[in-house]
């Protein structure tokens, strides 16, 4: 895969179709790959990487990159194409300046899941027939591939590329995922249990803003939480209320626009399952206003900027499920 990508990128650079390539760069270890822009064939040859750990969604970078001189080649996984499409819909990316090559998605691996098994000092990870062979400072360890699959890939919603100029590999289909299972489980808890669950999770928040800054739907030039004039700019959650406030408002602001790419939970240094908040909105939208997948197209109206005269009343919230 990586070789095919480098080969195609070099061709497109050489024939002048693009002048830059957006991909991932090798790090110190097998897993610490960094999104990067490559300008020459030599750089690609030397540093370009696409492996089991290239999880980062590149779409958000294209907001800035598409405003620079010339055309950029971007390698997008299926989930990244949804984000890309949503950004196109919101007129944030200049489509003409991006050449999209769709590449097969995951499942990608999450180093933290490997480390959670007690495996430490990791020097190399190889996938041999869905068994991971892990070279460590303390000898070789093995674990099943699927146990190390990242959260965002475990609940994959679609293997389909919704936008691309060309594909490397086959296009996939929308999957019947079980991504709402955990939301449903929480919905069936009592109010007190839900409160305790979220207090436990959100109290871990260190307000690093990684979830916001990585989110392809969070593209405000000046976030309300950074704007002193908003009255709610906070650099730290000085009270549990502010933890709730930040996450509720953030989830609400991306409601109807969140494509469920899972980046928020991936980057959270405290492993807070933030995607559950977004999925709750997606689930509600689907059940109350009809199935909607943000980023699936660039023409449909977002459910929150649309309405129906016979929409349900908010009292529906008070009537269903467990109090």
């Amino acid at each position, binding site marked *: 895969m990586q070789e095919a990508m480098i080969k195609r990128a070099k061709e497109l650079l050489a024939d002048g179709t693009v002048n830059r390539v957006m991909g991932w760069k090798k790090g*110190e270890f097998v897993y610490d790959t*960094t999104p990067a822009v490559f300008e020459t064939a030599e750089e690609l040859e030397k540093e370009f990487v696409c492996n089991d750990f290239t999880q980062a969604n590149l779409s958000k970078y294209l907001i800035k990159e598409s405003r620079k001189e010339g055309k950029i080649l971007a390698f997008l996984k299926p989930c990244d194409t949804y984000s890309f499409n949503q950004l196109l819909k919101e007129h944030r990316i200049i489509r003409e300046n991006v050449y999209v090559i769709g590449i097969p998605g995951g499942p990608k691996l999450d180093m933290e899941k490997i480390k*959670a098994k007690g495996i430490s*000092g990791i020097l190399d990870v190889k996938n041999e027939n869905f068994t991971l062979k892990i070279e460590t400072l303390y000898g070789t360890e093995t674990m099943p591939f699927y146990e190390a699959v990242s959260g965002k890939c475990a609940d994959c919603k679609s293997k389909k590329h919704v936008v691309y100029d060309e594909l490397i590999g086959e296009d996939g289909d929308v999957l019947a995922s079980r991504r709402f299972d955990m939301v449903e489980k929480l919905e069936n808890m009592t109010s007190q249990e839900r409160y305790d669950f979220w207090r436990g999770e959100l109290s871990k928040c260190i307000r690093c803003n990684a979830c916001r800054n990585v989110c392809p739907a969070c593209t405000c030039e000046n976030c309300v939480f950074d704007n*002193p004039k908003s009255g709610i700019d906070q*650099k730290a*959650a*000085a009270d549990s209320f502010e933890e709730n406030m930040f996450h509720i408002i953030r989830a609400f602001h991306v409601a109807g626009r969140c494509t469920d790419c899972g980046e928020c939970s991936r980057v959270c*240094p405290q492993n807070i399952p933030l995607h559950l908040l977004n999925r709750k909105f997606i689930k509600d939208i689907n059940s109350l206003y009809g199935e909607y997948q943000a980023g699936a197209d660039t023409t449909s109206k977002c459910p929150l900027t649309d309405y129906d005269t016979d929409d349900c009343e908010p009292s529906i919230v008070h009537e269903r499920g467990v109090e």
Partner: protein
Amino acid sequence: MFRISAEKLNDLFDRIASKQTLYIPVDREDKAAEYKKYESGMTLSSALNTVRSAKDFFFPQTENLAEFRLSGKTIEVKDIRSEHEDFVIFGVRACDARSFGILDSVFLSEPVDTFYKNRRDHGTIVTMACTRPEETCFCTTFGINPTMPGGDVSVFPDGTGYSFLANTEKGKEFMAEISDMLEEGNPAQLAKVQENTRNILKRLPLANLKTDSFGGERLMKHFSSEKWAELSESCIGCGTCTFVCPTCQCYDIRDFDTGNGIKRFRCWDSCMYSDFTKMAHGNSRNSQLERFRQRFMHKLVYHPSNHEGEFGCVGCGRCLSKCPISMNIVKVMKALEDK
């Protein structure tokens, strides 16, 4: 040197906790470790280090500095300082133990930060020697010896128990309190464990990282390096590296209007944020490149320049494992070092 067997460790914790507040690293449900106030029955984490560093104990993420109350035309200023109670932090690694020294050089130099000093005076640091360093560890780069972790008391695990060594007066007092629970140590066994750890340290992938190319005298060379553009291009400007870092010490002071008074508090700030050091005229660092550069220049150049060559990094490796885009101080050092 005195020793306690592993089975009796919790008895020791119970004893310490009966006299003062004790914090130990414990495993969370997601297997990440964090410091928790000890309650009977808790198990010491086996993880190498906690997600959040131990600096929280002396320099918490938020703390109230003063309160104001308004009545009519008068403002009453309430001094809310109070003597902190004694506490013990158990299981601090050598890197975090060194970070306290770096924080001290900032907060305890004139004018002394009394909030910090209050906590520092009342805390007893019990460190834990490392036996299984990770691939992200590079504390030896900064001259730290993880087999001799320092602090008030050092603890050395040997597989079946823990040996204790007091390093300071405070440490000796701590040891006196628990001396009846300790037995004679086994230096030979311990020496073997340390030898083993030293061998692993030599094999660490980052063992060859050197600080020779950095320091106060390299200011202009590094500041004007062309490498920053490439290094910072994918930085998303979050504060993860700053907030998990044991040595980052920048903060902001803010007022919160509670509706019936004002609470003045300070909270951690990150040089990665767009409104860091924002003043009336605006912001001094407007691009992510400048902000990114600030963070690493501070650790590798400004701090040593202001504090007798002491670097502002302890090589704990937290930023290596937590950065959302895996850009970190090691990559910066490798890019900037003299080739």
